[in-house]
């Protein structure tokens, strides 16, 4: 899965918008949306919110967790905790990127939020690398990783799996080789 796919999935998350147009309910395969009343907040998927935003048909209300204080608290927690703290949202990184790129004017303190989310992301990725490192170093067979988001898993999956594969090959080559050598001895 590449990041754009993950982002695509994230676009199904719901976000509140304040439309500036009036429209009855719209009936989509994924569910009914609306009705849209000008000035009244309504929940829509991110993809629609961004689309409307780009057409200047709405204002986006940032999700609840996208708030400087909450993110700061989360960052502290993340730094304190050994393991992964629960992420603010399963798609926090993607949503932050999407919303801040397209609707930064609707999000108060957008820059701070960007920095904070990046901090959280960095902390988590660092943890992830660290645990991957110790995982390989100690040659564990399995590891428990709670509270990882899809995006985070995807950043490391490719590399980790490939390298594990590689190492497995190397190791398994070595053993047969020794066996061979044993054979040769005979």
């Amino acid at each position, binding site marked *: 899965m590449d990041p754009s796919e993950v982002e695509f999935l994230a676009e199904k998350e719901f976000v509140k918008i304040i439309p500036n147009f009036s429209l009855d309910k719209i009936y989509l395969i994924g569910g009914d949306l609306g009705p849209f009343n000008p000035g009244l*907040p309504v929940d829509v998927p991110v993809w629609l919110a961004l689309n409307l935003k780009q057409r200047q048909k709405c204002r986006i209300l940032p999700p609840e967790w996208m708030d400087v204080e909450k993110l700061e608290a989360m960052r502290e927690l993340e730094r304190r905790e050994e393991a992964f703290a629960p992420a603010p949202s399963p798609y926090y990184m993607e949503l932050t990127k999407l919303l801040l790129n397209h609707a930064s004017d609707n999000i108060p303190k957008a820059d701070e939020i960007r920095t904070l989310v990046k901090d959280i992301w960095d902390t988590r990725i660092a943890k992830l690398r660290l645990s991957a490192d110790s995982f390989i170093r100690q040659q564990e067979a399995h590891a428990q990783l709670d509270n990882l988001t899809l995006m985070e898993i995807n950043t490391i999956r490719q590399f980790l799996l490939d390298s594990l594969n590689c190492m497995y090959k190397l190791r398994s080559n070595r053993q047969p080789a020794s066996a061979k050598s044993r054979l040769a001895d005979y």
Partner: protein
Amino acid sequence: MPCERKPMRYGHSEGHTEVCFDDTGRYIVTCGNDGDVRIWESLDDDDPKFITVGEKAYSLALKKGKLVTASSNNTVQIHTFPDGEPDGILTRFTTNATHVAFNSSGSRVAAGSSDFMVKVVEVSDSSQQKTLRGHEAPVLSVSFDSTDEFLASASCDGSVIVWNIEEQTPAISWPLLQKTSDVSNAKSLCRLAFQPAAGKLLAVPVETRVHLYERRSWEHVGTLSDELLTQPINVVAWSPCGRFLAAGSVGGSLAVWDASNKLCLERQKHEKGFTVCSLAWHPSGSQIAYTDTEGCLGLLDGLGTASSSGTGSTKAPAAKPAKDYDDLFDEDDGGPMDEGLADGNSAKEAAAGEDEDEDDFLIPSTGRVRNRGAILDDDVSLDGGSLKLGRDDDDDDAGSSVAPAAAPPAPLRPVYDGPEPTPPQKAFQPGSTPAHLTHRFMVWNSVGIVRGYNDEQDNAVDVEFHDTAVHHAMHLTNSLGHTMADLSQEAVLLACPGTDELASKLQCLHFSSWDTNKDWMVDLPPGEDAKALCLGQGWAAVATSSLLLRLFSVGGVQREVFSVPGPVVCMAGHGEQLLVVYHRATGFGGDQALGVQLLQLGGRKRQLITGEALPLSPRSYLSWLGFTAEGTPCYVDSDGLVRMLNRSLGNTWTPVCNTRETCKSKSDHYWVVGVHENPQQLRCIPCKGSRYPPTLPRPAVAILPFKLPLCQTSTEKGQMEEQYWRSVLFHSHHGFLSSSGYEIDEAARAQSEKEQQELLMKMFALSCKLEREFRCVELAELMPQNVVALAIRYASRSRRMNLAQRLGEIALEKASQLQEDEPWGPEEEEAGVPSARRTSGYGRAEPAADPRRSREEEEEDGEEEDGGELESEETTDATKRSNPFAKEGGSPVTPTPIGKAGRSNPFKVAAPGKPAPASGHLRVANILDSMTSSRKSAPLGGSAATAGKGPVLKPLAPRAKTKAQSTLLQISSNKTANKKTPESAEPAAEPQQQPDAAAPALPPPAENGENKRPKTGFQLWLEENRKIIMADNPDLDETDVIKEAMGRFRTLSADERRSWTERAKGQTGDAADVRKRKRADGGAEDETAESDSESSSRKKKALDASSKLSAFAFNKN
């Protein structure tokens, strides 16, 4: 002891300052709010050396070439003296130190801090610290005793503690001072001091005296005071010799006592009366240097005689520190000059400075802080303040009523304990935030938002529409200084108050205009200010200070002008309605006395509410006024209670929501921006800790549900009742809309009716379950007829025959009323509270009736499991039923029904318009029905009464048969079977036959209907004979007359009666259209029947019907 007071000179920027002498007495050293320590060679030194120690210096102490200062970065630092090289940091606190002092040898420094701690630090080794904990508030001052054994400190918690330094424990503590929260709030700095040389005494300034305590015993051994010292003493300092004590006070008094004999030797007054915050003795004892809170430095010279007797210079240091401390604190009082510097640093200054900053900037733009204050104070205060400004035009009244709040009429009546008049609330625009804010909402309503900016860069108005399809956003420069605005789908209306030169102006941006001139402006007459304004559909209204209400068309044509009874508080417009709220009188005890007018400005101009009182919660004021999107007046008071007009209950106001219930904290509020009845939404903006939102960040609208304040809404019953009445209330706008000729959403109405019926049925079932049959009957009375039918079925299925029977009676009544009320606008009936609404729609929307009725019927059909079959059955039943009663028309019990019949006459004209022939006979039937029912129910008590009053119900074909049957059964049992009995019995037994049965049954009612609508025989008779009756019984009232008449009519012979009926028939026949003729035919039949055997036949018919019904009921079971 005469001394010379040298002129003051400027030393530091204003704020707390401290002063001391160096060991030799050569230099005067001061520190101040500007963070500098200045070293003066003499008072005349024009170019003092200075050492910058921080952004602020709170205190200093100097001894043996070490200059110790407490600065705003929460540290106590050392500088060398006189070079001013930094020599390290002695100690740190979590907030700024307030006072530092050396011991007599200069080896230790004591420092007190705002973090409640006192630290004693070795100068040579700052790691050797002793911390004295025990104060519960910022420390004011510290002082070493001469042997270093004790340390005295004073604190804002009101205590003065003497510490044993080694043990770090309090040796003794006195509660001497007033408690305060912070040094800046303390009345006195309480710079206490131990006697230097002998060290026997501790001097503590307490209010206007100085207490002397004896060391070790800690007994109060004396008090020094002087009549010149009328204000709290800030600082005391011992002369180096320890004999004299100098004191400086708030207000600038200085005094010197001889401690041994407690005589006041010297009194001086600060030349400008500024507060003395620091004192220092010259080591020689001949001079006292002092500083004040304005940053000036002064000197008293010539104390030589006194000091010469004193000993050496050793004492100076003790005095110095004391002075230093004083300096620290007073800085808080002043210091605007230094605010810029101060910002990040000292807690004190920051506190003061930031407060001010907020006042200046934040508050105006967001309104938060000020709000908070207002909330805490009390709601009214918010307006109270502004009222004084705003209502000047109301001159005397306003003035007098406002004044008492601040200064009750003391001059007039020295003692007045009665209720105080409430300052009348100021006029406001609904959905606006206060005008004093620099960034504010001028309007937030369901159309859009108007924001006003009024700061240095910009004075502008932004108009933004929720729906960009209405118009694009606008940005206008507000050169006129508009303070009021309203916004509608057609226009923006702005108004500004007049000034001395300029008249108050009204500006309208009519953006929906199709010509090129999109705006117009009107000057109000001189001296007349716009107070409130609103926009409706095609019109604008302005209320002015001369109690006029001016109407304009939206294009700028002046329309009506009229006076309002009092100063207008607020106005709202919607469609053709104008709602005005004004001061009806002066309120007392915090209440406002508001009146309300509701005017209809459309085609039919009239006043719907004529200046009634507007109910408000106790001690609250109006905070929002408007209409729901559907056009029902609505308002919110400062207690967060939303009330809506209940048109169906004589224009009363019903609380529909208490926004405060949903608030998490006491200071949270909801700022209402709109009310919608369908869907039921209260749109408002949650404001944390304030009454109204800031413009930035842009607030988001939240939606609150409505809830009627019924009792016990936690129970199922209460819940359903609440839902039911809420549904009734929130759908009564359908009635209003249709009656004023607007389109209504039929689907929504049908939906709401269905909802109400379901709720009623649920409540009914619940009451049944609880064995509350009486309650069931009451509920049934609220039901439309078709639902009663269901109820009957429910009752009979659950084997409550008694209940079913009573319900039957109700069903009958309803059926009859239905028919009777048909001529009236059926829309009212549908609203569900028929009786109350009867008057409003009177006869207006009649044409609409039929389609609706039929629709409704269909709907009912759908609802019923049995569908059309049942319905048809019912209709037949009804018709049958009517027959018997028709005959009974002559019976003596008739009074009420006849009254109704009389009422229906006016609609005779309308009658032809009614397509449904059935309705004709039904109508007759109801009269009779109600007669019978009243007769029957007489023994039953309650139900009888209700029956008589007979609420109007749905125009549907009566459903209630089942019950009817049972009741009728009883009656019929007494009566002899008639020719009709068999006939009717058959259909009852077999539903299929009913149509047939209906046919015979129908005609008679038709006849009745005809009689009635045109005139019945009886009525004709009555007309002719009324006078006679009246003459016979002059004291009878209308109903009695009719009763009497009936009695008489009945005594007539059958032939006579027939002739009357024939006459009646003849009349109708002339005017009749096809339908009528039909009826007339029926009538003829009936007539014959009647003539044959009047009363008996009627009864028989009743029997028939009932037997049929009973049969039906039986089938059902």
